[in-house]
């Protein structure tokens, strides 16, 4: 610091020139032109109502994303300001559709992002497809998104504007086979699939695949959501001597089922209890008390994922720790899933020459091949157009170490669908 240097910033003359030009521009009424330089991105998720568990962490993720994009993004040599318009469906599918139409017609959004469950995603994707607005989504089985919205197997994709990434039945199959082979069992699987969109899709598509791999499926038949007594199913599972249980229930149904199963002594006989849809978030597992420990689960994101967010630059651990510090609550797998949607969405915007052109954005989505905080998103090589399958990693809820901040720990037990994710623990037998 001995030599006198020319300051790095603007010289006095440059400053005056810039300020003069800016003032001139403003007085001459060019200001509205700035408005077209703002990218408007709609974000729809369930923040309240029965699905609110999914949306609970969205506030934090939005904060992280908005902070990272506070200075706008550079696309094709131009800086755009970013405005994210977030909306809450209140877990209501028809409201989701209305919100989408409002964002499209009244806010003139350039890209729609929508996350979590068929009830949220499908109505929004349909509205976008109808209005010709690019839409990207994640966190629901892709089969229910693709075939559930009218696409036919073997035919060209009917969708031009909507794209979805994330797990599907094929990933569940790989994960379950890999997870269930970790422990010696009699390979008899008692299944509890409800009579709803997910349950029926799983029964029709997953069960036959599992049977092919040598598992015997004991299926008492579909039950209605809201059932308060499961004694007939429990009796069948006991009689058949199943050692693996696989369920896709909503959380209150699982609590009722599994407590009753324990009353009937079923919990002493099973070695693996593999739950999906329930047991995604720590609060639901804690509510089960001791019965929640050693439940098997599958995660679409885990803080051990070795990727960084392309939008926010944070790693999985940083994201989880940041959330815990900000909210005082335990991290959940939804954090990374929601952030991955922003990663993929903004990457598609960045890779287009003209982000204000809906055609160009949709084209950019169709050729998107990127890595988000939740892993690879690649629309160039999916099983069907418009879909990029993503991982679902086998996990287990275990008692946290003494002195930990939260009572339960969520550990990775297998990684068949994304070998980059480190396996953190061996699967423990439920009755062991």
């Amino acid at each position, binding site marked *: 610091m001995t030599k006198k240097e020319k300051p790095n910033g603007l010289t006095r003359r440059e400053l005056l020139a810039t300020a003069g030009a800016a003032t001139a521009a403003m007085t001459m009424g060019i200001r509205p032109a700035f408005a077209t330089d703002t990218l408007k991105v709609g974000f729809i998720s369930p923040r309240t109502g029965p699905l609110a568990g999914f949306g609970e962490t969205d506030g934090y993720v939005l904060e992280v994303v908005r902070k990272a994009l506070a200075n706008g993004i550079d696309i094709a040599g131009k800086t755009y300001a970013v405005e994210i318009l977030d909306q809450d469906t209140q877990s209501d599918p028809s409201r989701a559709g209305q919100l989408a139409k409002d964002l499209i017609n009244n806010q003139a959004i350039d890209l729609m992002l929508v996350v979590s469950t068929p009830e949220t995603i499908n109505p929004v994707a349909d509205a976008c497809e109808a209005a010709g607005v690019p839409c990207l989504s994640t966190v629901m089985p892709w089969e229910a998104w693709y075939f559930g919205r009218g696409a036919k197997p073997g035919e060209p994709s009917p969708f031009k504007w909507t794209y979805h990434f994330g797990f599907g039945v094929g990933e569940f199959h790989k994960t379950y086979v890999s997870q269930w082979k970790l422990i010696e069992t009699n390979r008899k699987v008692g299944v509890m699939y409800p009579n709803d969109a997910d349950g029926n899709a799983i029964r029709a598509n997953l069960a036959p695949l599992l049977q092919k791999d040598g598992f015997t499926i004991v299926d008492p038949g579909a039950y209605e959501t809201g059932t308060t007594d499961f004694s007939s199913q429990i009796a069948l599972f006991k009689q058949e001597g199943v050692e693996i249980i696989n369920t896709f229930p909503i959380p209150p149904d699982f609590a009722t089922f599994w407590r009753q199963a324990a*009353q009937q002594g079923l919990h002493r006989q099973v070695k693996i209890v593999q739950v999906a849809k329930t047991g995604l978030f720590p*609060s639901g597992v804690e509510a089960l008390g001791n019965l929640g420990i050693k439940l098997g689960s599958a995660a679409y994101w885990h803080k051990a994922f070795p990727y960084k967010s392309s939008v926010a630059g944070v790693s999985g651990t940083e994201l989880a720790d940041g959330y815990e510090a900000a909210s005082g609550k335990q991290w959940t797998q939804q954090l990374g899933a929601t952030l991955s949607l922003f990663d993929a969405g903004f990457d598609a915007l960045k890779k287009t020459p003209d982000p204000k052109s809906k055609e160009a954005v949709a084209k950019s989505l169709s050729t998107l091949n990127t890595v988000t905080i939740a892993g690879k998103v690649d629309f160039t090589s999916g099983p069907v157009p418009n879909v990029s399958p993503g991982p679902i990693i086998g996990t287990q809820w275990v008692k946290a170490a003494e002195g930990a901040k939260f009572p339960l720990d969520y550990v990775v037990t297998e990684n068949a669908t994304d070998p980059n994710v480190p396996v953190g623990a061996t699967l423990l037998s439920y009755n062991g």
Partner: protein
Amino acid sequence: MTNQIVQGILLGGYYALIACGLSFMFSVMRIINLAHGSLAVAAAYLIFVLSERAQLPLWACFIVAVAVMAVAGWLIQRLILDRSARGGQLLPILSTFGLSMVIENALFEQFGADTRSLASAIGDLSWDSWELPGGLYVGKLPVLIFVTAVVLLAGLQLMLSYTRIGRAIRATAEDPDTAGLVGIDARRVNAVAAAITLVTVTIAGMFLGMRATFEPYSGAPQLLFAFEASVIGGAGSLWGTLAGGIILGLAQTCGASLHPLGFLIAGHGVFLIILFARLMFPDLASMPARLIRRGAAA
């Protein structure tokens, strides 16, 4: 099959317990309380907060919650139901509907969407069981719930039959104006009855939290089963509520043993059959009693 029947009867006890307040309120005040389920969930949250955050033992939480909810019942009757009753018969029902919305969303604002349970407060009782001869298991908690339902209904019945306030409540239910002539203040009596209702709702909410899980919006399914049980049992009759709960529980478990989808359908089916039978043969409900009387006379 024996197992299914035993489980069905125990389940019926749970339904009777949640229906108890609904049917008591209807019998006394002729109001169908659509906030019943939400109030039970609110009581469960109250107990949850006291036991998790304030670390009180469960019995203390329960006593505090009962007191708070009784006061709440009094206030609901005085501030909402009394006033809306002046606007005609439909208005109190609509205002209880509004009340349930307010409660659900207030709970959501306060507690968020997390699934809660009172199971941690009772440890392994939530899934402990007794093994009976013949490989039959009965859960300790369902038995406790059943016994509580019977005791509660018996207590309410005794109170209505033998105490001063019970007689006042019955008189007001029959004819508030005439009751007023002999010095019974109908508004006061109704407020007491509402407070008693909310005590039963608190008990129901506590067992709901122990038996399953709850979140702010889980009141509606509870209301549905409570409503069915009380209608099957003959709305307003306390022992009928127990019978109604057991019939509903048995229908559901038997339906489920035919096919798991039969669980809810069988319950709803029995509910509708009994409802229509009531409408078409109004004196069917008292038939068993008359048959017994005739048998005794012969």
